[in-house]
């Protein structure tokens, strides 16, 4: 962008004000995370000011908390399976929706995106009814949670994948078909390598959505509570808070890492497609 446009859009003083606002905005935005990080080392059984002294015992408490570990293990399992299933379904559907023109494809796209705008609580109670009062009784388990998590992450996978597939030069596929490649080979050798970054971002997004999902997991996980459900139970009571804070700090740092990683991958994907 040229210097000229910048001065047209913002005066020098406006620019200074906006910079100050931006810095303040980021400060407030990141303040709670920083405070969590500080309190994770605070030597007090309730998280209140003033700070009491340095300790790492909350970290070791959390590390040795068996039920937390079990819940986290379950969440990892659910999130991994959810991301694989949602991304696979998403790739197939996205390819069909972008490369094949047919009547009603817009309606089908809209239908597949609807779960995005439906409140998760509604999806949760609807699945609860299907499994508990439907034609076939299904015991609630991690599998029922996965069923729900795929429903809510599939739209996001589609939104990531459709523009990538649409951005691929159609002539590449036509050339492959003209040279005698089957449609499976074309997909494997042409499409798949080109959308790998998008697939990885879809996997990540689905994983992140699933591992942090509370509403569906709380209604459908029965006794095998996932990590957010466990966390929810703990943070309702003040006396259980301190051991949760280190967990929170580590998770926040981890998820920042994942976000940065996803962004780097998306950029690389853009470059590969020459966007």
């Amino acid at each position: 962008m040229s210097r000229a446009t910048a001065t047209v859009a913002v005066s020098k003083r406006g620019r200074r004000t906006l910079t100050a606002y931006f810095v303040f905005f980021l400060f407030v935005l990141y303040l709670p995370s920083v405070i969590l990080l500080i309190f994770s080392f605070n030597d007090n059984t309730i998280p209140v000011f003033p700070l009491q002294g340095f300790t790492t015992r909350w970290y070791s408490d959390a590390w040795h908390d068996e039920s937390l570990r079990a819940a986290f293990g379950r969440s990892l399992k659910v999130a991994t399976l959810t991301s694989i299933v949602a991304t696979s379904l998403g790739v197939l559907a996205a390819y069909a929706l972008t490369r094949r023109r047919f009547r009603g494809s817009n309606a089908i796209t809209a239908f597949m995106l609807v779960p995005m705008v439906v409140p998760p609580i509604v999806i949760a109670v609807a699945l609860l009814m299907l499994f508990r009062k439907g034609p076939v009784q299904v015991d609630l388990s991690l599998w029922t949670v996965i069923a729900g998590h795929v429903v809510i992450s599939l739209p996001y996978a589609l939104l990531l994948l459709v523009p990538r597939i649409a951005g691929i030069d159609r002539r590449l596929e036509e050339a492959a078909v003209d040279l005698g490649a089957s449609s499976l080979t074309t997909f494997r050798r042409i499409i798949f390598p080109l959308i790998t970054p998008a697939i990885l971002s879809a996997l990540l997004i689905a994983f992140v959505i699933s591992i942090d999902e509370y509403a569906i997991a709380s209604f459908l996980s029965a006794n095998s509570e996932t990590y957010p459900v466990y966390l929810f139970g703990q943070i309702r009571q003040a006396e259980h808070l301190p051991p949760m804070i280190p967990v929170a700090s580590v998770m926040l740092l981890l998820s920042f890492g994942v976000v940065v990683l996803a962004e780097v991958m998306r950029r690389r994907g853009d470059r590969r497609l020459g966007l």
Partner: protein
Amino acid sequence: MASSTPSSRLGRRVRSGAGTAAMLLPGGGWLLLFFLVPLYYVFLFSTGQRWQGVTKAAAFVNGELTSFSWDLWGQLLGPDLKLDVLGASGTMPLWVFGFVEAGLLALALLGGRLGRYGRFVSPIAVVLLVLPYIAIPWGHGLHRIAGFTSPDNPSMSLLFRSISMSLTVSIAAVLLAFPVAYYLAFCLGPAKYRWLVIVIAPFLTSYLLRVLAFKVILTDQGLVNTLLFDVGLRNRDNPVDWLLYSQFTVFVVLLYAWVPFVALPIFVALENQDRRLLEAATDLGASRLLAFRRITLPLAAPGIVAAFLFIFIPTIGEFVTPQLVGGTEGYLFGSAIADDFGQNNDWQSGAVLALFLIAIVLALTGATSKFLRATGGEV
């Protein structure tokens, strides 16, 4: 392609049709089985064709409906609505109110086509539609300009409270995020995308953990109160006790959670606008304010509306935040649904509320899909 005979082309099309179906089936089937069919069961429950009790007799004893009936829907939609606007109050049947709202929504969307005075119709309709729900967060509660309550129908009152909450949060978030998006789009060079990621990153981290952080900040001896003690505004024995477990808390936490995200659609709208328009305006002698009002703002409008909807729609069914930091007065419509399926064990009433919520959300999404699509593809 040109050399293929008609029959082989036909064969290819048939095969490709079958292939398309095969590719759509897994994803579509999953949504059909785990999204549409469950919603059908919710409908069956809401009309009493399914019940929660072990047997029909047990269900009857529990006061559940055991045969088809619209009773529960009647209980939700039947009672009159009480309106309090600036001291004046009146009642009207809910369906009248529904018609008025739907009419205003239609005018807001189509007003521009009404010819000569059309461009005034949309804004007026939007203001009439939105204004009554806007609340001013003051002290521990949200104070609405107009009070909608339904004395005989607590869930409907909760719905209006939820709408107020979501609307106020959305408007506040858009107001707070707009300068950020503007700064990113116009004041930063190529580094702007990196800063955009930094702004949005908190949104993508765990929601529960951010709520947890607020519990630490807003308790009686949390960051805010401690600061007030130190400055001398409050006595240590007399902390501000409504910072946690009030409507105010729900408002702050929701706002904080969604603000980073709304910067995105606004940024996209600002970023895509043709910079030469601004230069041309200045060359023709327009002041910065005029150029902003006549060029930047109208071009950013779809992004602003999208940003607004991106918060309003997901927060309208919110129940986690009220449960964690809302206390009793922060109770919302989503909480009522969760409780019907949880501690109240009244699935049939919960089913009615859930369907009503989904109907509102889908109507709103459908009516505004134009705006959502404008920036939705970029997210």
